[in-house]
């Protein structure tokens, strides 16, 4: 290893990164992604616009309407219009749902007879519709339960399956933001390291490496150190955003978070290196890196769907990508805090280390110090 040579290359890379303004991209993109997605991907629904038609005008029905009006999940309005007019409002996307309370609502409940509450929901976005449906059912059940002890009303009269998490007020930020860190730290360093090498191929400066006595190892160290240092800072920036902007609790060990993130960045850099070995132009390198990091980074992060509930194929695929292992560790450091007491986390750290080593060995093997024929 020749420190002087490596230093010269690193210095040059930093100068170029700063003068080409690439450095802004290094920090801007991760921040933009985490902020946009953190706020943008919300799986729970608040303030859905609900129209309630009260055909009963009884004490019980008004109390139910009050419940809707006081819930943060709904913007409830009461109107006495015909059913067809109400449905039109859904069609025009002015309302998300319409609830119709039948005229004998109170009477039948007291008599413990079956009540049919009409609920119509805009199904354009199935997930959202299902969530709204569950919330509406939840409010109704909740309302009835509050009467149950006082009266003889049985909750069985309305046959609905409430969403179990409903009253726990599970925050989406806690579920999504740590996953986004795993996503960003997989994509961004890989893109940068791929570009830094391919850029020299595309512009021809790679000849300086080919025609000089620099060893392949020195070249790799020199090329990968700048993105490693720059993105190491992102580990802290993303942590601060998660904890202070999104108020995600941090219950585990910061050292573990830091160490596993650095390890994970190394994996990302090695992916970029492999891409740059096989590509010749920056645009191809960029597209290829994005494709092989963004999709698994998103799908198998456990952000959208827990790995344990995946089907056979996707379960296997999830285990092939490093995202799953890393995300398990950082979800633990943020939300659980079991840390190294968990056997699984130790195992996953080992898997990540093997992952990084194998990728680097492959990159070093495939890196050629000669022109492709």
């Amino acid at each position, binding site marked *: 290893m020749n420190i002087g*040579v490596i230093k010269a290359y690193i210095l040059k890379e930093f100068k170029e990164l700063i003068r080409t303004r690439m450095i802004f991209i290094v920090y801007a993109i991760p921040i933009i992604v985490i902020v946009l997605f953190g706020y943008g991907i919300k799986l729970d629904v608040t303030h859905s616009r609900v129209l309630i038609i009260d055909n009963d005008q009884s004490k019980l029905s008004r109390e139910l309407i009050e419940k809707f009006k006081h819930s943060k999940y709904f913007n409830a309005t009461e109107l006495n219009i015909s059913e067809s007019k109400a449905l039109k409002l859904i069609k025009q996307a002015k309302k998300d749902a319409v609830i119709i309370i039948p005229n004998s609502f109170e009477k039948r409940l007291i008599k413990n007879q079956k009540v049919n509450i009409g609920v119509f929901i805009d199904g354009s976005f199935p997930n959202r519709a299902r969530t709204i449906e569950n919330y509406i059912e939840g409010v109704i059940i909740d309302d009835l339960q509050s009467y149950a002890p006082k009266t003889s009303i049985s909750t069985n009269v309305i046959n609905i399956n409430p969403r179990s998490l409903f009253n726990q007020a599970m925050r989406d930020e806690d579920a999504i933001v740590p996953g986004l860190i795993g996503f960003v730290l997989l994509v961004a360093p890989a893109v940068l390291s791929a570009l830094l090498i391919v850029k020299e191929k595309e512009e021809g400066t790679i000849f300086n490496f080919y025609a*000089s006595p620099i060893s392949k190892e020195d070249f790799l160290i020199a090329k990968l150190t700048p993105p490693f240092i720059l993105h190491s800072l992102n580990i802290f920036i993303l942590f601060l955003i998660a904890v202070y902007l999104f108020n995600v609790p941090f219950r585990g060990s910061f050292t573990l978070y830091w160490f596993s993130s650095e390890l994970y960045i190394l994996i990302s850099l090695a992916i970029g290196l492999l891409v740059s070995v096989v590509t010749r132009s920056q645009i191809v390198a960029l597209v290829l890196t994005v494709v092989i990091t963004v999709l698994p980074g998103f799908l198998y992060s456990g952000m959208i769907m827990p790995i344990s509930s995946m089907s056979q194929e996707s379960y296997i695929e999830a285990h092939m990508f490093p995202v799953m292992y890393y995300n398990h560790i950082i979800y633990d450091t943020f939300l659980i805090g079991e840390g190294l007491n968990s056997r699984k986390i130790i195992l996953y750290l080992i898997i990540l280390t093997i992952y990084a080593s194998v990728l680097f060995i492959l990159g070093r093997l495939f890196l050629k*110090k*000669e022109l492709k*024929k």
Partner: protein
Amino acid sequence: MANLNVNSVTVIYKGNRIGIKDASFKAEEGEIVGFIGADGTGKSSLMHAISGIIKFKGEISFGKYVYHSPKEAEKVKKYIGFMPQGLGLILYDRLTVEEHLDFFANVRNIKMDKNFKTYKQKLLHMAGLSRFTEREAEHLSGGMRQKLSLICTLIHRPRLLLLDEPTTGVDPLSRLELWEILDNIRKEEGTIIIVSTAYMQEASKMDRLLLFDDNRIMASGTSKQLTDSVRNYVYKKTPCKDTDCLELHNVTYSLKPLNSEHKDPTLEDIFFINALKNRKKLTEISVSKRERRLEIPPIVMEAKGLTKKFGDFVADDKIDMELKRNEILGLFGANGAGKTTFIKMLLGLYPIDEGELTLLSQPIRSGRDRRKLKSKIGYVSQHFALYKNMSVRENLIYFASIHQIPASEALRRIERYGKELGFSDYLDAMPKDLPLGINQRFSIAAAIIHEPVVLFLDEPTSGIDVIARHQFWQLLKLLKEQWGISILITTHYMSEAEYCDRVVLLKEGKKIADDTVENFYKKHPEASNFEEIFLEYYREAN
């Protein structure tokens, strides 16, 4: 003594494409060896093999080191300096001149001591870059970039220096300065220098020449040895119909003795005689009359005070120019002198900032004025704008349909041009599989398929071999004679001035000379070729 010994080196690319076959030569300390030949004849392949950056068959030894592969070449790399083809290819746009030298020194593990600093200053001085140490490479001119690349390659004092076309695309003055640097280095350091070039005139600066043709080394020796070897075959123009004969515009080659006066041979002649010896038939080029007769005004193009600015930079500064009927006008100048910009203004590819332009007696003020004339103008750009994935015939049909030529007529014309310009065998081939010379002729066919009155050609001959270039000029001459066409052409080959009727010299956006070729020679009786005249004007204008 570290001598270079190249022993039957062969480089073969993917798909069995030959880069260079069986190349052998030797070079001694302090010697400048020139690789001369057209594009794609194997110069770069051989350089890459010697620099140890591509796999090859055969053996290369330098001093006590022997190598057969890039891996084995690793140990000699510290003695080698290699500068690849391309203007300042090895430079980092965002680094300054000084940072470049320091980077290359660091990468080569050179101690930054007093010695180094003196050497660095000396190199900067030689390259004329002392005043520009703080300037980023991006803002250097082509010539300066090339000189910076050279001194970066020299910073570790290589014992073996390989320069791949260091002077291509560089203006004649910078070219002279590059050669001065090389001459100093080899004298002071005893470096072996291998230089490739497409400019035959530079051969005189070299101790030994290797001529490349057909991916082989065709001949080697000093410039004098090489020209002497063909002296007996070169005659002043004499009619000769024999198969052992070849008659060109001002010279006749014959393998059998002719009863005629000999002419001083040039290096270019060697390529023709080689073709003659190998019984390679030169494609006969002919041009028949126009299909439609046209009235052509005596002045085809008239520019008055044409100016183009890019921000603060004035690319063309108040240029007056006239192109007459039936005239070939050569537009000469260094890189960045404003040649291409001028042609693009004529074509309406750049808006004209100031000045008046009249094409075919029609003042050009708007896009509508131009549209009326589209059918009378032909244009070939620097990089032939052909569609790579369409066959030659498909390309030509496409260009014909742009000019609304009926399909039956277009097909007939394509057949005819194919025969006359000698590419009928290639009509169904893809342009990327064809030699540059063929592509160039069919680009011309595309530009003249609508039988224009005037033809604008922007550096159509760059990188094309001697024979193809000769045929190309023959074609232009025939077009002029048969069609009465007017041609405005830019080129980097000074020797091609001889084919022009009139020459305009541009420098830094200004016109510095405009005269017939004869008059240029009359004014400069001491000049033996046009390059010398050109340099004269460039120096005067400084």
